[in-house]
Each structure stands twice: as structure tokens, then as C-alpha cells.
């Protein structure tokens, strides 16, 4: 029998934190969102600006990757045309789960000012979207705020199960 007992949970005890697996996994996921470089038009320039020196996206753990296999976030930045629509769907399907989509800018949200024969009136007709980001073009701060909102969303999801199928609009 031990002569003295150590209270591990008191100050000065062992550095132990109690948590759930879900929380740990979600903490990791939400702080290392790697985004696919999906600059389609003007918003892509602001997406680059948010990755560049002043706005520095790396602070959020968001690093732009050029391969869908390495990315879990697709920021659709710009106008989606009907000619391109097939490719966005294919690239979305190539991304590994869990995956999320931010629709950046008016064109990606609803077609924006381009209500013409050539543009898809919102990417949510082709791929499921998690977050809509208004603006034409949204500022880099706005994109970073969107990523922070997405982080909150990720932290609420159960990490141990596969993602629920999302629906198209």
C-alpha cells in the first residue's frame, strides 16, 4: 500500500488533460485545413492575397495545395462556367473525406452579375457548399473569417463518423 497518494488532477500533478477523441481529432482537423488552389476568376486573386504576405493564411494552418488528394477544403473563388462545371465536380469527387467547400464571391454563390448563357448560376448546383461568402470580390479578411466559421463548424461535427451526405441545392 502506498505511503502517500498523488492527486494527479491537482496543481503540480501530472500534466494530464481529459478530453474526448472527437475533440482532439476535430482540433487537429480544424487547425490544419488545407485548401485546394481553385482560383477561377477575380476572387482567386484575393484568395492569393490572403495567402500572401500581409494576410498570411498560414496562421490558420491553411496552406494551399495544388492537388485535390491533399486538400480538404475547396474555396471556389470565381465564376463557374458551364464549360468548367464538369471539372469542378470531378475535382470535388477526387478530394478525400472529410471535405468542405466555401463558395467565395457572388459569382460562385449565385452567378452574381453574370446572368448569361455561359455561367452556372451558383456552384451549389454542381457541388454541395458548406459556407457562402458574399462580396464581389470579398476581401482577404472576409475569406479568413469564413475559414474561422468553418473551423467552428468542423468542431461541432462528430469526428469519428464519416460525413453525412450533403445535398445539392
Amino acid at each position, binding site marked *: 500500500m502506498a505511503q502517500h497518494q498523488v492527486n494527479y488532477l491537482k496543481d503540480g500533478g501530472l500534466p494530464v488533460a481529459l478530453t474526448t477523441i472527437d475533440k482532439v481529432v476535430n482540433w487537429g482537423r480544424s487547425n490544419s485545413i488545407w485548401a485546394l488552389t481553385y482560383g*477561377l*476568376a477575380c476572387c482567386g486573386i484575393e484568395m492569393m492575397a490572403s495567402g500572401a504576405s500581409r494576410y498570411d493564411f498560414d496562421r490558420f494552418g491553411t496552406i494551399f495545395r495544388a492537388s485535390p488528394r491533399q486538400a480538404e477544403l475547396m474555396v471556389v473563388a470565381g465564376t463557374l462556367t458551364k464549360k*468548367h*462545371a464538369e471539372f469542378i465536380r470531378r475535382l470535388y469527387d477526387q478530394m478525400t473525406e472529410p471535405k468542405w467547400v466555401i463558395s467565395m464571391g457572388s459569382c460562385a454563390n449565385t452567378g452574381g452579375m453574370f446572368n448569361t448563357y*455561359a455561367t452556372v448560376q451558383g456552384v451549389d448546383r454542381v457541388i454541395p457548399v458548406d459556407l457562402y461568402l458574399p462580396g464581389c470580390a470579398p476581401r482577404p479578411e472576409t475569406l479568413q473569417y469564413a475559414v474561422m466559421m468553418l473551423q467552428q463548424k468542423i468542431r461541432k461535427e462528430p469526428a469519428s463518423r464519416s460525413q453525412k451526405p450533403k445535398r445539392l441545392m
Partner: protein
Amino acid sequence: MQQSNRLRPFFENISFDREDNELVLNFGPQHPSAHGQLRLMLHLQQEQITKAHPDIGYLHRGMEKMAENMIYNEFMPTTDRMDYIASSSNNYGFALAVEKLIGLDVPRRAKVIRMLLLEVNRLMSHLFWLATTALDIGAMTVFLYAFREREYLMDLVEDYCGARLTHAAIRIGGVPLDLPDNFMTDLRKFLDKVPENIKDYEDLLDKNRVWLMRMENVGVISKEMALSWGCSGVMLRASGVQWDIRKEEPYELYDEVEFNVPVSDKGDNYARYKLYMAEMRESAKILYQVADMYEGTSTELMAHAPQYISAPKLEIMTQNYALMQHFVLVTQGMRPPVGEVYIPTESPKGELGYYINSQGGPYPYRLKLRAPSFWHTGILTDLLPGHYIPDVVSIIGTTNIVFGEVDR
């Protein structure tokens, strides 16, 4: 409603017929170094390209058709989304074409502000070009440096018009706003640093072994080739043709400022890179001179032409007739006289021209955009064969194509 599973791309302009032993490589349309949505069909013998076929239209948004259903002022924000790296140059080209069509004379202060915006946009565009091209070739530091400076310029434009990227800062007949108080001091502060900033980039790149190997004697465009493919801007000047529309057909105040047009006869990627750097220095020089012109101009910002241009706000608020005219101009739009006009301007990427055919109505009967990048994409057909795959990236980089402009 569109059905997403029925959307099929068009392939009729791409031939998939293969000769023996050739690999057909699909480059794009979503390639990180394709500068937008360029799709290249490359035929390869080993690593060498034998045939290149640029496929465009992935960002076609139907702007020219949109223009036919819009009053002239309404189309102005759409021009922003063409060459979105330097939106004010597009605004300006359109405004100038309409002004020529109706024969307007713009007040001097508006001209000075337009010149400032144009040259600030040129600097922004060239910095962006440097950043992305360096990033494609692997010089990440230059990307971060150039974007740092570009943000200062965006702050300047934001001070003026409130937008970072899509400015819509120029109106038909002048400019909507006067410069804010601190604009000139901020601009001069920035300009003082431009030479040393450019020296920083050149220190990193000029003698860099990797940079030289990727740039020197790669993508050589001969003079004949550049002329026959309709190149303009730096693409043309790097091939030894002294042609700058700011000098040849001066518009705005370009005949009053002193600047050189840098020319090189090498025609390769490196020559284009050096020209971009030299043009940034020239832009700074122009900006210094234009900043001095601002003092002593009268405060008028919009041309006086009640038939086409709304009166200043004060008059609209106090005079009944000005209010009525403003109402008609906003609801029905101006009606330029019957005629057609083509006005080229020297945008950062080359000759940006607007052709407007007016039938006397409030909408243009036909509006055609002559965007430099379109022609610079075409040249890839002739330029790429004989090069290797890594060269494709650096050649696309130095052609400085932007797909909002190519596809419109």
C-alpha cells in the same frame, strides 16, 4: 433550372487524333500555374512538346453580349472583371471609347486622377505578374515581397474608391471623386521606395542560376512572329519592336510626361522579365510627374455635357432641370450619336481596345473588346513546340495572360 448531371463540356475544337508514340498531355483547365483557366493539349515526344493547342473559353461569361443589353454607365463595373489585376485600365479604355464616340472633353483634374489610377494599376499589375511568375518558377520569397508592395498600392486605391480589386473608379466623362487628403503624401512615400524595392527583386533574381536557366533563351519570340500573332505591350517590345500606344497615339496626359519605352531585341523570357522591371521604374517616374500636375487644377471632375453626363450633386439637389436630366440619364441612359469607334489604350498587358457600334440608342449595338491576352494565348501554339514541359510554366508566366480578359 440547370441540371448538373447534364452539363457536358464541348470538345469539338480539340482533336484527339494521335500519331504514333506521342503522348497527349492535358494541362489544365485547373492547373495552379496556368494563370487561370487555360487548358493546353500538349503532344509530347518524351519530354519535348511537338504540338500545343490552347483551349480557351473556361471563363467565358458573355460580357460582350451583356453590354448589348446595358446602358453605357451600367457596363462600367463589368469591365472591372475583365483584366481583374488592373481593373482601372479596363474602366478607362471603355470610358475613353464612349467619350470619343460622343466627343466629350474631360476636365484636367479628372485627367490627372485618371493618369494616377492608370499608372498605379500598371504597377499593381506588374508586381502581380512578378509575384506569380516567380512563384511558378519556385522563387517564393519574391512572391511574398511583391505582394507586400502590391498591398500598399491596393491601400492607395482603396483610399480613393473604396475597393481593392474591382475599382470601377472611372466614369464616362471624368472621375466620380476627388483624391482624399492624404493620397499624394502616401503615394510619394510609396514611390520613394519603388527603386529600392525593385532592386531587392532584381538582387534575388537577376543572377539567380535557376532563374536564368528557366528564363534565358526560353520562349524566344522573333520579331516577325510577334507581329504576325498580333502581340502588343511587353510581348512585342521584348521582340525588338518599339511600340507603345502611350507614345504612338498619346491619350490623356501621356504627351505631357517624360518617360522612356524600354525595348529589347532578345525576345526570350528573360528579356520580358527585364522589361517588366524597367516599366515599373518608368511608371514610378510618370507618377512623380503626374502628382506634380495635380496642384493648381480646377476642382471640376466631370465633363459638362448635360445631354450625356449628370450634373454635379449640388446642382441636382438644387436645380429642377438638372434633377430631371439626371433622372432621364439614370433610367434611360445616354444616347450617343450613330457611329462606331475603336480606341486602343496601352493596358499593362498590351493593347486593350474597345470597339463600340452605336445606333443612336441607349445600348451599344455591338461592343467588341480587343484584349491583349487573347492574342498572347494564341501565340502559345507556335511558341511551345520544341520546348520541354517545365518551360511551359515559365512561358505562360511571361506571356502574362489573364483569363478574365481572354474569354471575357
